[in-house]
C-alpha cells in the first residue's frame, strides 16, 4: 500500500523550555503513516510535553510540525487526541454520550448543534469501545478503565487520520488494556497512524511496530525490531539498571507470556 510510504507526522527541530530550562531539545523525526508507534522514555523525559508541543498546547521555542505535509494549524481536523485521564474533572455534570459527542464538535464548527447523525456516530464509537450500555451514565460513576474507553470513543468520534494518545494504559485493568490494544490495532489496519505514550517496556515489542525513544532529545526512531535494542535503551534510560534488567528480562521471554502485565515503569 502506498500509505506506508506517506509521512503522516513530521516534526522538525522542536525545542520546548519551561522557565528557560529546556525540556525537549531539537527533536526531529518523521512518522510513516499506518503504524502503531510507541513513545518510550523515562519519567521526565518530556513524552507528554512532546505531544502537547506537537498539538500546540505548550509553546515551542523553535521548530515546526507538519501533518500530512501541511502545518498542524491547517490540519487539526486530521488529528485526534486522547489526553491523560487525570487531566479533567470527572465530577463535571455531563454523561458519557455528551463527552463522546464532544469529538464531533470540530466537524460541526461554531453555532451548529450536534444532529441525529452525530448522536448515531457517537453511539457507534461507544459500541466500538464496548461502552454503548453506558451512554446515559454520569461520568462520575465510571471506573478508571471505563473513563479511558470513553476518552478513546471521543477520539474515534473525531474521525481523524492521526491519533496522539497520552498514556491510555495508565491505571487500567488487564482486560481493558487488551481491548484498547485491539482497538489500536484496528485503527492501524484502517491506515491510521497512532502515537502512544507508553511506560511498560515489557509490552513494547508486542504492541508497537514502530518506536520513538525519547529522553529530552530523541534517542532513536524506527521500526521496533531494529530500534528497540539494548543499546538504544541504555542510551534512553542511562544508568537506571533496574529498568534495564527488566528490559533484558522482557527480551528473553516469548511475547504471549507477557500478555496483560501491568507494570508501570518510571
Amino acid at each position, binding site marked *: 500500500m502506498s500509505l506506508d510510504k506517506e509521512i503522516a507526522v513530521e516534526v522538525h527541530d522542536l525545542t520546548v523550555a519551561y522557565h528557560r530550562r529546556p525540556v525537549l531539545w531539537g527533536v526531529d523525526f518523521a512518522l510513516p503513516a499506518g503504524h502503531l508507534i510507541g513513545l518510550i522514555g523515562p519519567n521526565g523525559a518530556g513524552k507528554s510535553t512532546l505531544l502537547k508541543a506537537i498539538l500546540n498546547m505548550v509553546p515551542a521555542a523553535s521548530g515546526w510540525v507538519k501533518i500530512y505535509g501541511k502545518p498542524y494549524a491547517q490540519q487539526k481536523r486530521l488529528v485526534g487526541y486522547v*489526553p491523560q485521564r487525570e487531566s479533567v474533572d470527572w465530577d*463535571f*455534570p*455531563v454523561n458519557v454520550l*455528551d463527552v463522546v459527542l*464532544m469529538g464531533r*464538535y*470540530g466537524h460541526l464548527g461554531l453555532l451548529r448543534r450536534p444532529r441525529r447523525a452525530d448522536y448515531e456516530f457517537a453511539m457507534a464509537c461507544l459500541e466500538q469501545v464496548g461502552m454503548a450500555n453506558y451512554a446515559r451514565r454520569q461520568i462520575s460513576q465510571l471506573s478508571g478503565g471505563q473513563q479511558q474507553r470513553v476518552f478513546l470513543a471521543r477520539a474515534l468520534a473525531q474521525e481523524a487520520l492521526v491519533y496522539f494518545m497520552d498514556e491510555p494504559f495508565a491505571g487500567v485493568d488487564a482486560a481493558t488494556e487488551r481491548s484498547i490494544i485491539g482497538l489500536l490495532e484496528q485503527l492501524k489496519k484502517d491506515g491510521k497512524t497512532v502515537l502512544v505514550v507508553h511506560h511498560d517496556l515489557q509490552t513494547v515489542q508486542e504492541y508497537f511496530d514502530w518506536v520513538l525513544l525519547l529522553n529530552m532529545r530523541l534517542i532513536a526512531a524506527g521500526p521496533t525490531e531494529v530500534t528497540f535494542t539494548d543499546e538504544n535503551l541504555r542510551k534512553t534510560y542511562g544508568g537506571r539498571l533496574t529498568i534495564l534488567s527488566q528490559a533484558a528480562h522482557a527480551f528473553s521471554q516469548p511475547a504471549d507470556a507477557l500478555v496483560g502485565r501491568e507494570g508501570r515503569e518510571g
Partner: protein
Amino acid sequence: MMIEDFWVLLTASLVASSCGFIGSFLVLRKMAMVGDAISHSVLLGIVLAFLLTQQLGGIAMFIGAALMGLFTTFVIQLLHQGGAQEDAAIGVTFTGLFALGVVLLSLYASNVHLDTEHVLFGEIAYVPWDILVWNGIELGPRAVWTVGGAFLLTLVVTGLFFKEFKLCAFDPAYALTLGIPVTLFHYVQMTLVSLTTVAAFDSVGAVLGVAMLIVPGATAYLLTDKLERMLLLSVVVGVLSAVLGYGFAVWLDVSISGAMASAAGFVFALAFLFSPRSGIIPTAWRRRRVLSGDGAEA
C-alpha cells in the same frame, strides 16, 4: 403587596438568577474567586467611566466595567504566569484595583450618589424610584432593564455557544486541539461576568454580588449532574433566595441585599445537607442502612 415591592422583588430575582446563571460556569471552571475579583474591580471601571463622562449609569459605565473585568482576568493570568501563586495573584489584583476605585471615588466623586457603602452593599430598596423614561413614557425601574438586559445577553450568547462553553469548561486543552478558540471564549465569558456584575452592582453592591455569583451555581451543582439542569436550577435557587431574602428583610426590617445573600447561604446549606445526590444526611443514611443490613445478616 405594593408595586414597589414587586419591582424590588423582580430586580432581586433578576440579579440573583443572572448572576447564578453565569456564575455556574465559574463554579464549574473552578474560577469562583475570579468572579469575586471581577465583581470588585468593576468598581474601578465604573469610577473611571464616571470621571470621563461625568454621568452615572449608561453605556459608558458598562463599557468601563466590562473592560475592567477583562483587564482583571488578564492581570491575574499575567501574574500567575510570571510566577505568582494563582490565589495570591487573584488576591493582589482585585484588592489593588478595588482599592484604587475606592480612593478615586472618595477623591473625585464623593458628592455623587456613588458612595462606599452603596458600593459595598447596594441600594436595592431605592430601585423603584429610579425610573427609565423614554420619549416621555415611564418604562419601569432602570435596574430591571439593565439587569434584565445583561441576563438576556448572557442567555443568548450562552445559547449560541453552548457546546463550546461546555467543552471549554470540561476540557479546554482538548477543545484547543479541535480548533475551538478557547481563549476567545474565555474572554467572552469573562465579559458576560463583568456585564452581569456591573448590572447587579447598583442593586446589591460588590460584596453581595459575589454571593449571588457563586452561591446559586454552587447549590445547583450539588443538586444535579446534568449541565443544562444545573443552569436551570441556579436560576431557581437565585429566585428562591431573592424571595426568601426579601421576606426576611421585610419581616426583620434589615438590609434587603444582606438578607438575600443570607437566604442564598441558607438554601446552599439545605442542599449541602439534604441533596439526594451528594448531601451529607442522605449519604450517611444510605451508609447506615447498608451497615445495619450487614448487622442483621450477621
